């Protein structure tokens, strides 16, 4: 492997976690569209995450769980079904990263958002509905409680020390563990791509 790490590798991670009890939480909720042209270096980027759930129109804070002092600084979200559905906006993951969030635990994560997480060193962990509900309940009962994740062994330790195992695509795991970005990986196949493009063009001359 000649590719060099370009994003923070994800090996083990332990942090306090925040429960988000919203099924089908779409990426419009994760970052409203009006922030999509902002650069990731914008000093306010961390505020864009879940903005309209966290802030009133006058900028004051709502009573949304994310604003409770015990959950501030949480590096892990425990969400509900179909987290990140809707728009392909990768800004949703940029907003997670801007808040130091490195993992999202949910029963299911929408396909495009899932890929976007992998591309940015954020680990999506899929546990069952019941396991996620249990974790969210534990976090509500014990605000500030920690969850620990070990990607190599694909295990997660809940606030009550219960150990869970999770599945992940081996390629996604490899990229996260090593902090690899796809372009560097792909360019290892540079010659193969060039040869393929030529043979494809010969077979599909009309498609050029």
């Amino acid at each position, binding site marked *: 492997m000649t590719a060099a790490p370009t994003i923070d590798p994800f090996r083990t991670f332990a942090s306090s976690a925040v429960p988000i*009890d*919203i*099924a*089908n939480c*779409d990426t*419009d*909720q994760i970052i*409203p*569209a*009006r922030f*999509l*042209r*902002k*650069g990731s270096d914008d000093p306010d980027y961390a505020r864009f995450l879940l903005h*309209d759930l966290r802030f009133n*129109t006058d900028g004051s804070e709502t009573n949304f769980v994310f604003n409770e002092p015990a959950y501030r600084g949480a590096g892990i979200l425990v969400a*509900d*079904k*179909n987290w990140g*559905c*809707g*728009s*392909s*906006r*990768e*800004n949703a*993951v940029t907003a997670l990263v801007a808040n130091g969030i490195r993992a999202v635990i949910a029963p*299911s994560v*929408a*396909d*495009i958002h899932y*890929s*976007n997480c992998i*591309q*940015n060193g954020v680990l999506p962990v899929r546990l069952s509905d019941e396991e996620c509900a249990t974790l969210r309940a534990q976090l509500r009962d014990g605000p500030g409680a920690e969850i620990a994740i070990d990607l190599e062994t694909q295990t997660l330790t809940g606030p009550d020390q219960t150990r869970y195992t999770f599945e992940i*695509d*081996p*390629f996604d795991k*490899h990229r996260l563990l090593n902090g690899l*970005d*796809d*372009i560097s*990986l*792909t*360019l290892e*196949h540079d010659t*193969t*791509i060039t040869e*393929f*493009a030529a043979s*494809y063009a010969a*077979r*599909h*001359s*009309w*498609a050029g």
Partner: protein
Amino acid sequence: MPQTLFEKIWHEHVIVTRDDGNSLLYVDRHLIHDLHFRAFAQLKAAGHSIREPEKLFGVPDHSLPTTAKLLADIPAGEMREAVEVLEQASKEFNFTHFSMTDDRHGIVHVIGPEQGITQPGLLLVCGDSHTSTHGAFGCIALGIGSTEVQHVLATQTLWQRQPKSMRITITGELGFGVTAKDIILAVIREIGTAGGTGYAIEYAGPVIEALSMEGRMTVCNMTIEAGSRCGLIAPDEKTIAYVEGRPYAPKGGEWDKAVTYWQALRSDGDAVFDKEIVIDGRTIAPMVTWGNSPQWALPVTDVVPDPASEPDASVRATMSAAIDYMDIEPGQPLSDIAVDMVFIGSCTNSRIEDLRAAAEVVKGRKAAVRTLVVPGSGLVKKQAEAEGLDQVFIDAGMEWREPGCSMCLAVNGETLGAGQRSASTSNRNFRGRQGVGSRTHLVSPAMAAAAAVTGHFTDVRKFTEDA
């Protein structure tokens, strides 16, 4: 071994497959819009260039106010910068760009097919979830994130794991007044907003075959609202007739070769799908969504459901939250819900057929509420004007606008006010989608037009019969 349509196209594009099952795919067409304006500086900073710029097509759509004809008409700041930077990049990197002053510009998912850039058998990507639209032509069309956009720019390839396969067959026929939009809302209602996650969906059956290309695009467009990033329909004579003669379509001998290839692009009769869904077209009615997910759709003749009758606590909570946010009541007839504004447009429903359907309802009537009609491209706009549709809308007191995404995601300055309610032909009814505090109900163009002239949701079938 029998193959599905998706598998046939997929295998044709696989460059390498890793031991873990992930494949590097060759990309035939890459479409890019203004919200990716930062991609080019990032690409350069990383020391990359565009590998095959002749396969890249750019167009501004998200950031165009639909009152703007020139760059100078766009408010200064990031909105104008996005449009400006995309055009500059097209010159620097030498890719095709349809500028806002060019009649060929419009919503990226409208102009791809319109220009013949979208063709059967291709692998097409765009940094936009509604890229699934292009699957209507029998190609693999994938919405991707911005890192993947840069990856395609730099390598002309994309890493993917082959998704599972689902076939959704719509049997029978559609009733009077029922359209492609109602089909896809009925599908999403049936399988749920995550029902297609991890799948590529092929739509089939007599109802799909009977749809125009515009209708098929509407169906494939909202595939992402069912959780699947790829919907497709086998190409047939209608598909080929649509593509023929378009500017970027193959010509002469290449056209003949292409047609021969396209005609063989269909799922084998004995191909096995991981999941099969069958919906009887005769059971589909004109639909209206009432909640904050496209799956919360019901026939317009129905009432707002009662969360109390929902056994699942999580679903019940979601329903209650939506009813509260939308300011509606359980048991309230959907036809009693009054709207403040109507939006006819978006990559779902802004093509000529959509505007004709809306105009047919509007003709000779007056708008009861403010109504924006936004054609999907400059060419759709010209066609509509040639047919006099613009005058139908203007005579009704509606606003006839320049092309763009407009109020679908409302990043061009066109929004609903807090608490305002729309009937919208777009694709998402999420909280705040059309502006902070906005309330969106999704409908077909004919249903949107009916709501516009009555001021509330109205069964377009009754409406048309009464006329």
